[in-house]
């Protein structure tokens, strides 16, 4: 029979199933293939904190959304066009993410009486049969049955193992639906299961079976094509945030000549940085899984004292535990990087969900006056740059430096036009090997940046002692002198403020340099804000977008930019944190837009707020007899 082919600009697909169904793997495979085929893309893994919640239940549903296209893609898609569900619970939990008229691909076997019961659906209310899905195009296939049949005779695998591979059938089918080839996934499977030929054969067989199923079964009459995106010329790869952060650290290590010492304690969603770095021993990276969060940061203080680049990463609760040691690092004035991959809080909060609620912790969360520079990443690939810049600031200004990421970009993926190592800036550690005063060494004598020299153990004659107690200017000796303390507090603050002389000025991401509204964001809201502003501007609204990477100190021209607009809107995935700091520092009446659901903003949520505010303004102007 003939199948028609439809060309689309972009598609969002959500794979959803039980946490044991391999939906994350299915999603990342589809992502990698889309990337290699040249689509722009953005992904959003959405999974429960439990490794294996009770099978078939709502609590155990794991999802992965990919938005890919031939056009610019900034978000994982507000709503999906296609929802692939492996069971009833997955449908129930994800239906609200599907566009009206969207496609549902359902595994019938996951809608049997047992699965309906586990999903709290009455036996006579099977959504595949009761007409409740009439707004959507529903396609069903008995994945379990077909899978078992495909491998029945000669696979040498047990039923459990066969069932575990059923995600490959689904992946194969979706590849067919979107005209993708299987090459990348076959290569991936070959690398993964090369030593287990039975499992390898079974997976490849199912992948092909899924593809052929689309080809032969008459239910499916339409295939879709999504052409490569018109992205800037260059060489690209696909990358996830934590991976990019790890590589950024290695790049900074190479550019500074300092070996990395990474001390860390496992915590979601930061652990992948540890996993990644532990593979880079041949880059001179030492990874140390400490006994707790405090030991993790203290170990890097020791390593930094020894002349290495100490780095630690954690998430909110772990950062809280590291607080005192960060204060020590600040007092010692040693270079260290602290990465906070934020998640929903407070306390244990929502370990696998995203949030931007640690900003105030990073900003103010230490005893005494202890300002630390903060750099925030705004997308998965941007984690590379943010990590690199955090290292550069830490080393060249002799201070601990924060890098903020979050669960959304840490686990999300996007294409990355990666840099050449030769184009990355050099990082210069302020090492010292000789006396810096008359016949002696002053460990706290400062340069024009106000940063101090770094003398490491092993350097002859520069023996010195440093500690957390207030120290005398220049000598570093213990001092309880009142005037000295006030002087030192202000000096250390000025040192951090002076970093503003060494970072780029704030730029607009899009829009007019002056106008009605500026949307100010930071971190992972970048894509959603960019899309929302683009759409609003296309409809004639006067709205611009600035995204702040350097949160402390702010770029020198930020205040000037803020004053160029009538209105400032600040979307944040928290209860309003940066907005407090901006109002405090610049006395501008910034308007918060908050989402605290453990989920990223959709671009519509931001767009709607932009329109609402600009329309009110229009109305007010109109009633005053003014013109737009």
């Amino acid at each position, binding site marked *: 029979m003939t199948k028609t082919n439809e060309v689309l600009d972009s598609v969002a697909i959500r794979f959803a199933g039980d946490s044991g169904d391999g939906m994350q793997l299915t999603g990342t495979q589809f992502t990698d293939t889309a990337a290699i085929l040249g689509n722009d893309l953005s992904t959003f893994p959405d999974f429960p904190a439990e490794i294996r919640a009770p099978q078939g239940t709502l609590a155990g549903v794991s999802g992965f959304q990919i938005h890919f296209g031939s056009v610019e893609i900034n978000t994982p898609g507000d709503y999906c066009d296609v929802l692939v569900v492996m069971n009833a619970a997955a449908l129930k939990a994800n239906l609200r993410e599907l566009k009206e008229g969207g496609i549902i691909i359902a595994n019938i076997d996951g809608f049997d009486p047992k699965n309906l019961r586990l999903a709290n659906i009455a036996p006579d209310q099977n959504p595949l049969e009761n007409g409740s899905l009439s707004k959507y195009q529903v396609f069903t296939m008995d994945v379990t049955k077909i899978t078992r049949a495909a491998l029945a005779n000669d696979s040498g695998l047990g039923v459990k193992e066969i069932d575990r591979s059923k995600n490959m059938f689904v992946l194969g089918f979706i590849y067919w639906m979107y005209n993708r080839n299987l090459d990348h996934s076959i290569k991936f499977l070959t690398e993964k299961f090369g030593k287990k030929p039975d499992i390898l054969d079974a997976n490849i067989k199912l992948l092909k079976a899924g593809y052929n199923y689309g080809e032969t079964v008459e239910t499916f009459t339409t295939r879709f094509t999504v052409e490569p995106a018109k992205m800037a010329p260059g060489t*690209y790869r696909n990358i996830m945030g934590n991976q990019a952060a790890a590589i950024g650290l290695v790049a900074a290590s190479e550019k500074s000549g300092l070996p990395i010492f990474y001390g860390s304690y496992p915590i979601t969603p930061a652990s992948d940085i540890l996993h990644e770095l532990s593979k880079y021993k041949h880059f001179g990276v*030492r990874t140390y899984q400490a006994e707790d969060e405090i030991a993790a940061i203290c170990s890097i*203080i020791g390593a930094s004292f020894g002349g290495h680049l100490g780095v630690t990463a954690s998430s909110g609760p772990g950062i809280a535990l590291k607080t005192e040691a960060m204060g020590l690092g600040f007092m010692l004035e040693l270079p260290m990087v602290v990465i906070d991959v934020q998640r929903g809080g407070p306390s244990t909060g929502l370990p696998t969900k995203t949030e931007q609620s640690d900003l105030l912790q990073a900003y103010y969360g230490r005893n005494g006056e202890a300002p630390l520079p903060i750099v925030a990443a705004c997308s998965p690939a941007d984690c590379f740059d943010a990590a690199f810049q955090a290292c550069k600031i830490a080393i060249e200004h002799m201070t601990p430096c924060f890098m903020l990421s979050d669960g959304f970009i840490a686990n999300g993926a996007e294409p990355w036009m990666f840099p050449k190592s030769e184009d990355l800036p050099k990082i210069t550690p302020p090492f010292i090997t000789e006396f810096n005063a008359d016949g002696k060494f002053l460990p706290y004598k400062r340069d024009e940046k106000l940063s101090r020299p770094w003398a490491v153990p*092993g350097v002859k004659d520069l023996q010195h002692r440093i500690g957390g107690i207030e120290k005398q200017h220049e000598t570093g000796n213990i001092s309880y002198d009142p005037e000295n303390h006030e002087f030192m507090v202000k000096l250390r603050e000025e040192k951090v403020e002076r970093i503003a002389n060494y970072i780029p000025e704030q730029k607009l991401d899009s829009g007019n340099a002056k106008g009605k509204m500026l949307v100010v964001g930071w971190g992972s809201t970048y894509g959603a804000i960019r899309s929302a502003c683009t759409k609003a501007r296309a409809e004639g609204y006067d709205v611009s977008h600035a995204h702040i990477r350097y949160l402390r100190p702010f770029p020198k021209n930020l205040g000037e930019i803020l004053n160029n607009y009538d209105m400032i809107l600040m979307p944040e995935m928290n209860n309003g944190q940066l907005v407090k700091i901006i109002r405090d520092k610049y006395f501008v009446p910034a308007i918060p837009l908050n989402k605290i659901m453990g989920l990223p903003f959709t671009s519509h949520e931001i767009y709607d707020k932009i329109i609402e505010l600009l329309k009110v303004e229009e109305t007010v102007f109109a009633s005053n007899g003014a013109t737009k």
Partner: protein
Amino acid sequence: MDSTTQVAANGQAPKMVAKDLVTDQEVRWCPGCGDYSILKQVQTVVPELGIPRENIVFISGIGCSSRFPYYMETYGMHSIHGRATAVASGLKASRPELSVWIVTGDGDALSIGGNHFIHILRRNFNVNILLFNNEIYGLTKGQYSPTSPEGAVTKSTPNGSLDHPFNPLALSLGADGTFIARTMDRDPKHLQETLRRANSHKGTSMVEIYQNCNVFNDGAFFIYTDKETKKLETLMLESSKPLIFGENADKGIKLDGFKPTIVSLADGASANDLWIHDEKDAVKANILARFFDNPSKENHLPRPFGIFYQEDRHCYEDQMNNQMGSVLTKKGKGKLDELIAGKEVWVIN
């Protein structure tokens, strides 16, 4: 052999004397504090080790003893409460060639820093831990510590402490420490010898030093340090020698199965039947560490001093370097551009 002493053997180390290790900082412990003696013994022993002072690092936590690094003309860090062991672990892992000394107290190491303390012992970094035990919180002016005896009347326990105390050496053995020793501030010779042995041990050397706090807990260890009682109450351990103590070296310890018993040599017991100290015997070391009776108890065992246990076990930092070396051999030096590009790339023209 310790790598740091090898440097000395090559003749690279300049000759050093105790005063080369004195800093220009005024020592600020209370007059009469046991810390003075410990500082003096350390400054006496370290020059003998043949390690250039720029290759030595003293790291401390918080407490009276933790002011120690300020008085040593080496590299030093006065860190935060309980964390000296964690800081030292990171330093030693990244710079294995340095001679790293940790100065800590009973509160610092065993209370707030208890976790890091047990973990450094199991990892067995080649560092020396000097645990100044005075059974009291001195810097905060006199609260009971995790080694204070039950019933201790202190500022925070006017009706007596309810806490059962830690036995630091039993704890260290429990954490698989590889060098476990006890000494005291008032026996300079013994303290010096113990420091020498601690330094020559490759692995985490845990030296508990009974240290008198003459302001808040004066005399806590006098029974072990005063002439009148010392011989009867202490058992000075010597490798391959029988366990003998007493006014006239007239008492011995015999093992009755696993039970140590005191026998009187004057009453005819033979020295041949006595327990012979073996530093390599983990089972016996555990029994020895349990010689921890309150001295007011009838028929209590004497308190042992010296090296309880010594074992050669690989050190974390060496293992870490070996692993890095073998990965490097296998994969070759990493190329940054290859890492950045990853396995699959595509080009857009």
